[in-house]
Each structure stands twice: as structure tokens, then as C-alpha cells.
């Protein structure tokens, strides 16, 4: 083992270290993660129900007409009951079912828009932060412009424009409203993410392990991918989760403005919008989708917060 090193007294080491960990990870508090558990359970259940809704017998189709106790189809008449858990709305559809199906679209829009923001924004941020200089300035100008544009205005313009383009261009046939919204929200998410990632990259770049990687001859691409990116993941994840909730709510806002997805596809925003006038008489049609939106956003936030705490403790040793 160490026979080539001068065998002085037992005082000289270079013996394998014992397996016991040295650094105790001190946690200062240990609250039972009720919020986190709830959030996870809720989201998992919701997602499963939403995407398996077609196969679940207790969820009627959103466009099915629910009959009232007198066997007739009615408007706004039926509140929450055993036949319709969240009641029925103006066109006799089951609110619960619409809410669940709506979850599908809302979640999809939120997730895809966030992913778009992360991929493009993150890439821009890392490149800007790592190379600095001219590249950084260019990226910063782009993000500043994006941030300066009023989000709502941009959304309205984009959606309208994309509608026109879609009609004109053949290969844009897939660009349904839903995807337009994904694109729009994604573009809006790029700038904040780029800034956050850039800031983190700037600080990580100066760390000694990055310097060490460069000194062993790693190319910039490798340094960014293998050294910097893994250390960005905690930040990106926490921002992503909280940002996700914002984007879902934003979709709701767009629906409010009449820019929602196509007719026939329920989303939470649409539901809330369609039924808000009758909130005095049949509150259930609006309040329940509202509640679902609220709970979803809350859950994502709780998970995001927990993730940030968990990664922070790790990074305390860093």
C-alpha cells in the first residue's frame, strides 16, 4: 500500500480512511412535511385522473348532458349532489368532469411552456454567463427586450398573429390554439429564466472546480455540460416549479380575455370565465374550477419550496 513511501513511524498516514462520515449534516428543524405530502398526493391524483379520465367510469364526458332529478335537462339548476359532485353548469354539463378534463389542458400548457422556457432560457443563460463579453451583452439585450414588452400585449398579439399564420401556411396546421398559447407563454418564460441561470452561471464559473476542469483541458462545451449544468439543476427546478404555477394561472387569464383554447376543450380559465356571471345563483360552476386552480398552484409552490430547501442543505457543504 504505502511501501514506496518512506516507512516512518506510525505517525505518517496514507492509510485508507475509515468509512465513517465526517461531516455531520445538521438539520436545524424537522417539521413533518405535511404540506409537501399533500401536494404530491394531490398532484399525482389529479394528473392520473385527468389523463385517464376516459377510462374512469365515475367521470362522465364533459359534453354529456346530466339529467336533473325530474329527468329533465336544466340550466344552472343543479348544485353539488351525488350525481354531479361539483354540480352542473349552464349547459347541463358536469362541472367536475369539465374540471378534470380541463386539468389535462391546463397542466399540458403549463408544463410545455415551462419546458420551452427552461430549454431556451437556460441555454441562453448558461452561454451568456460562461462566455461573458460580447456574447453576454447580446443575450442580455435580447432578454431585456423580452422583459420590457408588456406580457399581456405580447400574448394577445402573438396569438392573433399565429392564428393568421396558421390559416395561411400549410405546415403550421398543428398549431392549434393550445400550442399557440404554449409557444406564447414559453417565450414569455425565457427572459426571467435566462437571467436567473446567467446569474448562477456567473458565480459558478468562478468556482475552483470549474477552474480545475478547464485546467485539465476540458473544452467549454464539456465544462458547461458536466460542471456547470449539474449545479444549476437545483435552481432551475425550484424556479420551474414556481414558474409553472404562474403559467397555469396565466393560461387562465388568457382564457378570461377570450384567447383561450378552442371551443369544446375545457380549461380552468374558460370554466371560470364562462360561469362567472352567474356566481350568485350557481356559484359551484365557477368556484370549483377556481379552487382546483388554487390547489394546483399551491401544490407546485410547496414542492418547489421543499426542493429548494433540500438542495440548499446539500449546497451548505459546498
Amino acid at each position, binding site marked *: 500500500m504505502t511501501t514506496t513511501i518512506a516507512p516512518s513511524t506510525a505517525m505518517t498516514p496514507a492509510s485508507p*480512511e475509515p468509512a465513517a462520515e465526517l461531516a455531520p449534516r445538521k438539520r436545524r428543524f424537522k417539521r413533518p412535511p405535511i404540506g409537501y405530502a399533500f401536494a404530491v398526493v394531490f398532484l399525482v391524483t389529479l394528473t392520473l385522473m385527468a389523463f385517464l379520465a376516459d377510462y374512469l367510469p365515475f367521470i362522465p364526458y364533459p359534453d354529456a348532458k346530466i339529467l336533473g332529478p325530474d329527468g329533465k335537462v336544466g340550466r344552472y339548476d343543479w348544485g353539488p349532489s351525488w350525481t354531479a359532485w361539483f354540480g352542473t353548469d349552464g349547459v347541463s354539463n358536469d362541472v367536475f368532469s369539465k374540471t378534470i378534463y380541463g386539468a389535462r389542458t391546463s397542466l399540458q400548457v403549463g408544463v410545455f411552456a415551462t419546458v420551452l422556457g427552461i430549454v431556451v432560457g437556460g441555454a441562453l443563460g448558461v452561454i451568456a454567463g460562461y462566455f461573458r463579453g460580447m456574447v453576454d451583452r447580446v443575450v442580455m439585450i435580447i432578454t431585456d427586450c423580452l422583459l420590457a414588452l408588456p406580457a399581456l400585449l405580447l400574448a394577445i398579439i402573438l396569438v392573433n398573429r399565429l392564428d393568421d399564420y396558421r390559416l395561411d401556411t400549410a405546415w403550421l396546421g398543428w398549431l392549434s390554439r393550445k400550442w399557440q398559447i404554449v409557444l406564447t407563454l414559453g417565450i414569455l418564460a425565457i427572459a426571467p429564466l435566462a437571467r436567473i441561470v446567467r446569474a448562477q452561471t456567473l458565480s459558478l464559473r468562478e468556482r*475552483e472546480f470549474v477552474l480545475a476542469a478547464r485546467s485539465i483541458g476540458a473544452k467549454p462545451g464539456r465544462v458547461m455540460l458536466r460542471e456547470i449544468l449539474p449545479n444549476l439543476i437545483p435552481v432551475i427546478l425550484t424556479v420551474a416549479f414556481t414558474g409553472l404555477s404562474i403559467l397555469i394561472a396565466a393560461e387562465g387569464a388568457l382564457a378570461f380575455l377570450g384567447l383561450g383554447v378552442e371551443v369544446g376543450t375545457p380549461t380552468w380559465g374558460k370554466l371560470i370565465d364562462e360561469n362567472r356571471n352567474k356566481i350568485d345563483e350557481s356559484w359551484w360552476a365557477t368556484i370549483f374550477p377556481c379552487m382546483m386552480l388554487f390547489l394546483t398552484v399551491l401544490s407546485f409552490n410547496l414542492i418547489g419550496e421543499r426542493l429548494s430547501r433540500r438542495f440548499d442543505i446539500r449546497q451548505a457543504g*459546498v
Partner: protein
Amino acid sequence: MAGTGKAHLRDSPDVLLRIEDLVVEFPVGRTGLKVNAVSGISLDVLKGETLGLVGESGCGKSTTGRAIMQLPRPTSGSVQFEGRELTSMQGDAMREARTRMQMIFQDPISSLNPRRKVRQIVMEPLTIWKRGSEAERSAKVDAILDKVGIDPVRAGESQPHQFSGGQCQRISIARSLVLDPSLIICDEPVSALDVSVQAQVLNLLEDLKAEYGLTLIFIAHDLAVVKNISDRVAVMYLGKICEVAPSDELYANPAHHYTSVLLNSIPVPDPEVAITKTSIEGEPPSPVLPPPGCRFNTRCPAAQDICRSEEPQLRAVGEGHFVACHFPTVTPVELTLR
């Protein structure tokens, strides 16, 4: 700005690294001012030698180490390594040259990527340069980990934060050895370690140097540590070299006033030794506006007018002993040219 001269450079075929007129300047924000971190120094290191670079914070020693590695590139000056000029190398040639010289940093834990397993970290250089087959690389990494005293199995399972500071430093050393470099630059490698662990790491470095035939540049602020591990020591102050001498000679006969002050300031673990009243007041001047002439003149007990106007050049005061001072404490000698 004139440097302190090159009288101390040697003309030997064994010179591994030669720095001439190295200047490193950093801009200060947008003010147009510059931090004169390193202002025209020249040094050389022979193969198999350990050069100690010592000075207090702000003297430019760490910056010198990084400038040698071209990380970042110096503002001007020449760095010749193994006969090749590094400052003009680009891209792939530069990256390739970097494998021949490695660096060990001060903070052991933050010099390792916190998200990766230790074994991967040590294997990384071999992976990048595709040296040998998978099995050969594995064997090499295991052998080196063993040599530095880290259990290879544990290294494969654990991340840096699960190791102590001393162990992390050993891991850094292991990583720097896998590519068989000829030069290792150690930037304050033991400053962040406990006293008892320092000795372990210093012994380890000496052993590895002997075994692998390494050349070391040891940068530190602790003079006793530097003396212990170096053959030759260069003292820096505010971006300039004050004195260069073989270790024992420097400590026995310091010729520069700053060196004397440094030596006197070191707390000696012996209560019988009377504490000499520190003969130096004040703080080092800012590297943004360094004093003219000899940069130590503002605090030097022997400063005269000439010190404030003219920069002293390095001249010989003994065998291999050079000092940049107008009034050194050891009389300069004329070295006859051989």
C-alpha cells in the same frame, strides 16, 4: 512599468518553466482604473525543483500561478514551458499543453464538483483525453487514489462533501496526478487545513514529488510551510519580486527589509523567544495606485529618496541569492561570469 530585472534567471538546459516580464492587470469596473496584480516579474524553475512563492494577500502570487496556466491569460509577458511559449498558444494546442501542468487549489471542498462522485472527478482528465482503455484508466485511478490515501471503493460511492478537508485535498492531488504532469502549481494547498492535517498533506506532496519526479511551484503565505517544502523561495510584494534565494539561505540571511519584517512577524511556538516589536506599521498600499519607485518604500524602515523614485533591480548578494533593494541588508556581490 519596468520589472525588477532578470539577473536571477538561470541559463540551464534543465529549465522547465521560465516567466519573463509577466504582467497581469485587471480592470476595475468601469472606472478605467486597473488593478496591477502582477507588474513585470520574471522567474524560472528547474526540473525537479520546488519553487516557493511567498507573500501576503494582494501581492499577486496566486495571480501569478493562474497566469502561468493562462487562466486567465496574462496582460503581457512570456511564459515558456518545456521550451514552448504558452502565451501565444491557442485552442487545442493550449488545452493539450495544460495537461502537462496541473493546479491544486486552496479550498479543498470547492475545488471539487459537489454533484459528482469522487472517483469520477479523478477519472475525468483521463476521460477527456481518452488515455488508455477503460480498464487501464480504472486501474490508474485506483492506484493513484490508493497512493494518496483514499479508499477507491468509497471514492466511487461518495461525493466531496462526505469527505473531510484533508481528504478532499488528497483527492485534488490525485486528480492532478492522473495525467502525469511535469509541473504542479499548488495555490495555498494547506492554508485551509487543520494543523495536524497540514503536516500529512505536506509529507504526501514531498513523497509524491520524489516518486513521480515532479516539479512544484508552491504558493503560500505561511513562511515556515514554504521553507519546509521549497528548494528556492521568491518573496513577492504588491506585484513585484523582492528577493529570490535558496530556502535555507533566505531564512538565514534575508537581504530585503520586507523579508526581514515577514520573518520577524511569524509567531514562534516558544514562549522563551522574545517577541520583537513589529517594526512595520500601516497596511499595504492599494494595487490600483502602487507607489512609485520601490513599492515597499511607504513602510520600509530604511527607505531613502532614491527608493521613492527609482525602482530597484534584482542583483546578486550571494550564491543564487538575489534581492531588489537599493539598500539591502546583505552587501551585493559581483558575480563573475562563468
